[in-house]
């Protein structure tokens, strides 16, 4: 509900309040080396009055803007304030490295703390507030959403954030990082492809032969209920046995641990959304449409080409989208059975009680999932015929 007297726009207001609260929370953790106990520092300790002042200024400006309605100019101002909060916070991390780390601690490293994360969150809430229901085209909104990442990339590439523990962990493992990233993409990509190759025909078959519908979905639903860790574990024994029994397979690299069980388990997990959507894509085509098509003289192939495929493809693609995002997350767990991937860093970090290493593994996994989700989202939009675009999503 709108408040008549003040016309407070709540989203931006929430972001601004969050940013102001964040000013008083611990900002960074300074550790003399990787394993030593660290020391928390607030923004005040960074002793950079210009940047801290700017940050506080942007936060307060956001707060004021939240009461000024939603005209185009106010929106642009909110956006600028949000980006200002973001930029100041990131630069303060760099500044903290410069001012808090003295020459007598060559291995010192910084980790962002809750104050910093609150500022990140506040940024996105404020930017969201500025774009909400805005009459801008989609492309503009998407572009604006990317701006913080561009700023972050520039600051990182300039080497300003090298004192951050996450980046230090990264620099220590730069070669392996690329290798595991490739591994991760290979495992998720191949398993989703395999799931498409199996799941789409399976879903269509379940639709054509209604007798198969139940068994197919009991099976793929059943797989989904097994916890991922258990499924990976379950693969070990039978595959080890098969690999022992058939040396040819062993030479192909099929063993109880490693890529083979990971790929199988990941494929099985990816099946449900793909199979279900393939089935649904056919089930939602109205009977009347098929009847009209056949009655006007479409053969099976005409019907498929002109009617069924155009209507089904967007739904099948959105099943693939769900599976792909899931697979990227599940692949992280595959590292436990020696398959590699970015999960390797996460489990290594867990083993060494090094949270920075965990974060270093998690950030690219999340980024990957988001990128794949967005790319497939664009693909689905393109593949959706205009007549049904407004109807769905």
């Amino acid at each position, binding site marked *: 509900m709108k408040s008549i007297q003040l016309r407070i726009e709540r989203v931006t207001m929430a972001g601004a309040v969050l940013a102001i609260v964040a000013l008083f929370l611990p900002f960074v953790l300074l550790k003399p080396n990787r394993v030593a106990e660290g020391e928390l520092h607030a923004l005040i300790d960074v002793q950079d009055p210009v940047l801290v002042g700017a940050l506080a200024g942007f936060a307060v400006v956001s707060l004021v803007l939240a009461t000024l309605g939603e005209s185009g100019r106010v929106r642009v101002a909110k956006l600028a304030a949000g980006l200002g909060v973001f930029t100041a916070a990131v630069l303060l991390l760099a500044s903290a490295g410069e001012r808090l780390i003295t020459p007598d601690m060559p291995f010192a490293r910084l980790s962002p703390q809750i104050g910093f994360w609150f500022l990140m969150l506040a940024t996105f809430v404020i930017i969201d507030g500025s774009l909400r229901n805005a009459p801008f085209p989609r492309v503009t909104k998407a572009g604006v959403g990317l701006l913080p990442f561009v700023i972050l990339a520039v600051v990182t590439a300039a080497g300003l954030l090298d004192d951050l523990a996450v980046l230090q962990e990264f620099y220590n493992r730069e070669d392996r990082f690329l290798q595991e990233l490739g591994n991760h993409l290979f495992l998720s990509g191949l398993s989703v492809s395999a799931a498409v190759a199996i799941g789409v025909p399976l879903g269509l078959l379940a639709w054509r032969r209604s007798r198969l519908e139940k068994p197919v979905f009991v099976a793929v639903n059943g797989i989904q209920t097994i916890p991922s860790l258990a499924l990976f574990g379950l693969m070990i024994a039978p595959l080890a046995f098969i690999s022992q029994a058939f040396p040819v397979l062993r030479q192909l690299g099929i063993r109880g641990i490693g890529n083979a069980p990971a790929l199988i388990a990941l494929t099985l997990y990816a099946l449900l959304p793909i199979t279900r959507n393939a089935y649904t894509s056919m089930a939602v085509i*109205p*009977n*009347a*449409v*098929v*009847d*009209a*098509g*056949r*009655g*006007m*003289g*479409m*053969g099976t192939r*005409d019907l498929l080409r*002109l*009617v069924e495929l*155009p*209507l089904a493809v967007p739904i099948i693609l959105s099943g693939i989208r769900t599976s792909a995002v899931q697979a990227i997350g599940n692949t992280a767990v595959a590292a436990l059975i020696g398959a590699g991937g970015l999960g390797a860093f996460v489990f290594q970090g867990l083993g060494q009680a090094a949270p920075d290493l965990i974060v270093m593994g998690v950030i690219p996994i999340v980024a990957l999932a988001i990128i794949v989700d967005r790319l497939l989202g664009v693909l689905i939009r393109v593949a959706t*015929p*205009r*007549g*049904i675009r*407004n*109807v769905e999503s």
Partner: protein
Amino acid sequence: MIEFKGVRKTFGSVDALRGVSFEVPTGQVTVLIGPSGCGKTTSLRMINRMIEPTDGDVLMDGKKVGSFAPEELRRGIGYVIQSVGLFPHMSVRDNIGIVPRLLGWEKPRRYERAAELLELVGLDPAAYGEKYPHELSGGEAQRIGVARALAADPPVMLMDEPFGAVDPLNREVLQKEFVALQRKLRKTVVFVTHDLDEAIRLADEIILMRDGEIVQIGSPERILAAPADEFVRNFVGNDRALKRLACFRVEDHMQRADLLAESDVGTATIGAESDNGHDGSGLYWVHDDSRHLVGVLDSAALSNGPASLDDVTTVRARDVSVGPLSDLREALSRLLGQGMRAVPVLDKEERVVGEVRLPDIEALNQTGFVR
């Protein structure tokens, strides 16, 4: 001509058709009607081989439909169903152009044809051509369904309860348009419905079915006047006399009307321009300069010399009139509703072209049942 010869159909253990034989005359509207499950839709779908008979033959121009490839056969037969089945991902003009597309027409020719057909079913091609099905009302969608079926100009149209899902008001409009369209196109139409009023309005011939068998074949008027048995009598109902009026078109039973220009009201006298004094309705339809109906004047007002404008009862043309293609049932309803001796018949330009008189309707009803 389409011909059914001893056609049977069983679905599992159910007899859907128990050996029916009938003919569908070329260029006429044949309506299959009966309660649910009587086999009317099954019969219709056998003509374009959507269903194959268990036994017997369906012939088209003397050749068994089974001898044609189903796709080829269907492209030459228009097909309209109750739920329309427009392709949701195609624009209106692509929907209309689908059979031409299957026949290999080039795009410009298809679009040209689509525009023609939109015009024919009373929709503006510029406004509707690029719309999508979800942007259409039920009535618009059904018009486009009809346009789509007409796209390749097939001689035969199959229509399975095409107006069944449209609200009653729009249904009547669509039925009237269908009648007008059919006068122009003279297609061989097989039309399935369970709505007797619709059958009476549209049919040249009605085939009444029940439990997979034909109960009676005949013109609507015939079936209402002389039901073959108790079942038909019940089916047509107690108000068959009234229903029968729907078999007659206004244009076939209207009489010459007396017109009077508004400006002449003050000078007109009885018989001045009328043969209407005694056996007619005794009503003058008063029109304005653009010949639009504005009121009615009772000739009684003229008996004491010229009348004045005060004697003219103002009417709203739309409320009192019927069209040439309306049926007599509607005319009677207007007569009773307005409490007048006659209703004016207006053409498209809202000019009076005749009138329908109450005694004529009464006479018609009596002769019908004696015959």
